[in-house]
């Protein structure tokens, strides 16, 4: 009997194709909106997660000054030097690798090709801290580091623009007026924290200090924390050490900042989650409106089909069967709307994901939930009109014009 009712419902929907479509439009849009929002939101969360992890896990970035810049007002905070790096390496427990960084920018030239990029002066500890592997060649030897030799390891973006697919290791190119030999190439990493991580040339720090910046300053120290240590305790140990070395006493504020990538990851993930939830909630409201749309049309349909209901009752349909018919009609309609909404969401997310630069992550759970929810909306909002139909008096219903 239940099957028969479904057949009846489908017949009825087929008979009023346009009206049925308009009825479910609200559900279609609601489901599509919810699923699109949540899917893209999940993609955004995953993208943020990936970017954060590509910065290196459990890394503390130490910079002079407060905040992200060098600190406004007051005397400028001095850069670090190699002695600070060595002190952290030797005196702080739980430090896996300490990589100093000195940066310069310049145009790299090879034959007719040129490319504006950033030169990163550091030590071999950088590769350990970043967990960055090479796609070819080798990293610096201690001798090269010590001597500040003009050797370099290039990122894949630089490699592409200077060498265009040719063998790079062993070749030479010029950056500013320094000629340097390529000894290694980095594995491609892609976008990270809003910048192309592969657009870099890595040289021994002494080479950069001597040939580019002309001083021994270190702009940035990167500390990789041993996994068995709490990054917070390592952070405070480094803070205490640097305060001492920089002669900051009492209540005086630090003139440097230590930035924990784990923190930014948590913050960013938290905010994308909230965004997803808010957008999902807005979309859910439209789903609710869609449900009210179904109830509206079903009520109109009951009035319009009063005579038909009278015929069915006269022929011998019991109240329960009429109720079931209208309820099933509402549920079939709503589920159909849900299904179309899911398809629409699939198309929308596949099309939109590349545009807003997040990965497309198909989440079967949200699809199932949205579908079940649309069917439930059919039951909830279909029940009232169905009960109204079932409680009609056959004589009055037959007389209805």
């Amino acid at each position, binding site marked *: 009997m239940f099957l028969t009712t479904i057949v009846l419902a489908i017949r009825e929907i087929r*008979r009023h194709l346009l009206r049925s479509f308009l009825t479910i439009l609200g559900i279609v849009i609601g489901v599509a909106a919810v699923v699109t929002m949540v899917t893209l939101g999940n993609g955004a969360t995953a993208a943020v997660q990936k970017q954060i992890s590509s910065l290196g896990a459990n890394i503390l970035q130490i910079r002079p000054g407060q905040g992200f810049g060098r600190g406004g007002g007051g005397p400028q905070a001095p850069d670090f030097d190699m002695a600070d790096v060595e002190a952290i390496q030797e005196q702080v427990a739980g430090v896996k690798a300490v990589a100093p960084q000195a940066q310069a920018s310049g145009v790299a030239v090879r034959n007719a090709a040129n490319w504006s990029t950033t030169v990163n002066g550091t030590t071999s500890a950088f590769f350990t801290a970043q967990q960055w592997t090479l796609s070819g060649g080798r990293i610096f030897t201690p001798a090269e580091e010590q001597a500040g030799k003009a050797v370099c390891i290039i990122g894949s973006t630089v490699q592409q623009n200077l060498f265009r697919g040719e063998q790079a290791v062993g070749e030479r190119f010029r950056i500013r007026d320094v000629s340097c030999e390529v000894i290694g190439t980095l594995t491609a990493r892609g976008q990270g924290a809003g910048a192309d991580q592969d657009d870099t040339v890595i040289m021994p720090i002494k080479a950069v200090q001597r040939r580019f910046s002309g001083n021994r300053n270190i702009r940035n120290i990167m500390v990789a924390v041993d996994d068995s240590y709490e990054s917070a305790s390592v952070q405070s140990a480094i803070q205490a050490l640097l305060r001492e070395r920089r002669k900051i006493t009492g209540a005086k504020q630090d003139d440097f900042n230590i930035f924990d990538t784990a923190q930014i990851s948590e913050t960013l993930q938290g905010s994308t989650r909230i965004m997803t939830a808010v957008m999902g909630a807005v979309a859910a409201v439209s789903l609710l409106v869609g449900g009210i749309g179904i109830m509206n049309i079903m009520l109109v349909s009951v009035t319009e089909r009063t005579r038909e209901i009278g*015929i069915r009752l006269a022929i*011998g349909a019991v109240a329960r069967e009429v109720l079931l018919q209208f309820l099933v009609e509402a549920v079939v309609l709503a589920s159909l709307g849900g299904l179309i909404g899911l398809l629409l969401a699939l198309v929308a997310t596949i099309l939109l994901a590349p545009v807003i630069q997040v990965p497309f992550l198909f989440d079967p759970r949200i699809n199932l939930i949205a579908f079940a929810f649309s069917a439930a909306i059919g039951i909830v909002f279909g029940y009232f009109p169905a009960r109204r139909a079932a409680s009609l008096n056959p004589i009055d219903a037959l007389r209805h014009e």
Partner: protein
Amino acid sequence: MASEPIIALRGVTKTFGSGPAAFQALKGIDLDVAESDFVAVMGASGSGKSTTMNILGCLDVPTAGSYRFKGVQVERLDRDQRALLRRRYLGFVFQGFNLLARTDALENVELPLLYRGEEKAARRTAAMAALAKVGLADWWDHTPAELSGGQQQRVAIARALVTNPDVLLADEPTGNLDSTTSLEIMDLLTGLNRDLGITILMVTHEPSMAAFARTLVHFKDGLVEKVEEGVAA
């Protein structure tokens, strides 16, 4: 009459509304209908014939009195039980045909079988057979809009017949039809009564249609005025 009548009304009254606005449509009806009879119910509008038909069709219950249908006290049944009684034993033909719009003849005729839970193949066979009985086998895939009034009424009769009912209740079946078509419909009903032994109760106000019936029941002011038996052959 030898056997028990299929329909027996005793002291049936029906009052609509309550208090001072109450209106008594039936004031105490006694009526017996024998199995396989063809009864024409006549009377002016407001005489109570439609109310009586509704009660006979188990669509309504009397305010007082008893209605015995095939030995069952109908007034004691609830709404759904009466629906099951209609489904099992009764067929309805209305003045306005009351077919489902945008639904072809076959589906219209199948409808009562659907509620009986018949299989699709059985439904189809029975519905086609019923359409053949009313001479519309070739028109099964036409919707009411594509059929003439007479054809629509035939489809309605086929729908009433498809369950092999014991009693066919026809409320002015020819009221919306011209005289030639009306005669065809009456021929059809007479044939069903004669060949299949279906008990027919028909409301009409046209004496020419009532002439097809075997028994005439005249209503007046909520009472049975007179019963003429054996008027037609």
